[in-house]
């Protein structure tokens, strides 16, 4: 049984339709990448899954239960955590307080402050400073750590590499690879196709609100992906 599955998922901003019948699934223990150009609907898809945009009840199933249209607060309690685009740390909270906010849902599991600090030792050094005083890379680490603190069954990462130096991106993805090696299930949204192919087992490509390609990451060719990515 798939951990998360969407069936003919549609989403709207007012009268504007942003998603057209998206079928997506991910099994437990899998890392799946979602690629696509700006405006392809990747973030809309994530927001709809996480409850930040309305969805029909039966369009999204998690652990076999229909969760479409539940509030974001209810969905995160069921075990889907989002590392949002742009990090969205709380500026008036310290780094450690930001991490503690992730544990607000009080889900049981291996992730606590100590284990997050073991994964990202730099955060421990900077635990007392305001989240806004961190570098971009450290902020991304804090955002991942905050999501992990909720001990999610599924981690969704939106544009981890956005605005970060290549060396920092490498460091972040190394940490992510460690997590996935330990059995974390993750959806990775990424603009850099090469990175996406390397870190994921399977890959979906979106264009104009539709899934235009899906397959095993290692078996897809550059041509197939750019065809699906740009539609040329």
């Amino acid at each position, binding site marked *: 049984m798939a951990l998360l599955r969407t069936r003919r998922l549609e989403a709207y901003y007012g009268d504007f339709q942003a998603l057209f019948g998206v079928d997506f699934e991910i099994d437990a223990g899998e890392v799946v990448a979602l690629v696509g150009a700006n405006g392809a609907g990747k973030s809309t898809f994530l927001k709809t899954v996480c*409850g930040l945009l309305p969805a029909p009840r039966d369009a999204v199933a998690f652990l076999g239960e229909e969760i479409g249209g539940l509030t974001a607060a209810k969905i995160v309690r069921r075990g889907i955590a989002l590392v949002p685009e742009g990090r969205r740390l*709380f500026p*008036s*909270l310290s780094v450690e307080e930001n991490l503690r*906010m992730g544990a607000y*849902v009080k889900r049981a599991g291996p992730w606590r402050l100590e284990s997050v600090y073991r994964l990202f030792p730099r955060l421990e050094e900077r635990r007392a400073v305001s989240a806004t005083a961190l570098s971009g890379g450290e902020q991304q680490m804090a955002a991942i750590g*905050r999501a992990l603190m*909720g001990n999610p069954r599924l981690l969704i990462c939106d544009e981890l590499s956005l605005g970060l130096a290549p060396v920092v991106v490498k460091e972040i993805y190394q940490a992510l690879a460690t997590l996935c090696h330990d059995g974390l299930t993750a959806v990775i949204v990424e603009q850099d196709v090469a990175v996406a192919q390397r870190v994921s087992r399977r890959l979906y490509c979106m264009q104009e609100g539709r899934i235009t390609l899906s397959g095993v990451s290692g078996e897809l060719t550059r041509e197939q992906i750019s065809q699906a990515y740009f539609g040329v």
Partner: protein
Amino acid sequence: MLSFIDTIVQGILLGGLYALFALGQSLLFGVMRLTNTAHGDFIILAAFAASSLAMAIGLPAAAAPWAALLLLLPLSFGAGYALQRFVLNGTLGRDPLPSLVVTFGLAIVIQNALQQIFTADPRSIESGGLNTASLSLSAGLSVGVLPLLIFGAAVVLTCGLQLLFDRTDLGRAFRAVSDDREAAEMMGIDHRHVYALATGIAFLLVAVAGTLHGMKTTVSASDGPALLLYAFEAVIIGGMGSFYGTLAGGLILGVTQDVGFRIDPGWGIWSGHVAFLAMLLLRPSGLFPRTR
């Protein structure tokens, strides 16, 4: 010299009362940017409720107001929670106008309901002589016991509120929701519940402020807007989002009013407003903006 010290001391004690008026307003503004224009009327409502409860309880006058306050606290919290959950949450959004209009309407309803039920006659909460008791600090300088108590309550509640904000899970949730409501939602925080808790706590402060105010002086149904104005001025002088700032704002307002009173009895309230306007001109963000 002694009369100068006396003026400052009395002003500080008066400022404690203003800080009590202002704390609830400061909390609501800090958590959800809500300006409750019925805040003063809720304080008057609490004073009338405490007065009625105190009379109904039938205890000696020295104990009745405190028993009434104890009864009033849970009622007030529940009323605040329900008001936010079922009325005010629906008015919050990018546009500040709906919440202003709704609370303004509530203010009118409360004033008229109080006048209908209790008539326009001022009343006071009988405290068994506490409101006239005083402590002599030195020859020519004495302070009222009740004003001292009110000042103490203001300091304790300010520190308590600041600790709640800085140190507890609920305080972190308050700040997180205030920073970024959607991101807080992604942490599993139900903002409607958190907002309602904030208003519940603000209404605990309203109950304390109303009861103490009613014990100190007489209250009448139409007093609310004046209290709102003092609360407002204290919050602005202190700076939005800081409870210590709100306390400082209340004290500054109290001292300037008292100094004004000593110069000319007609200048008291007026000089408070002048201090407020001067602050708006010189430091529009207040003394301690956003220092939580």
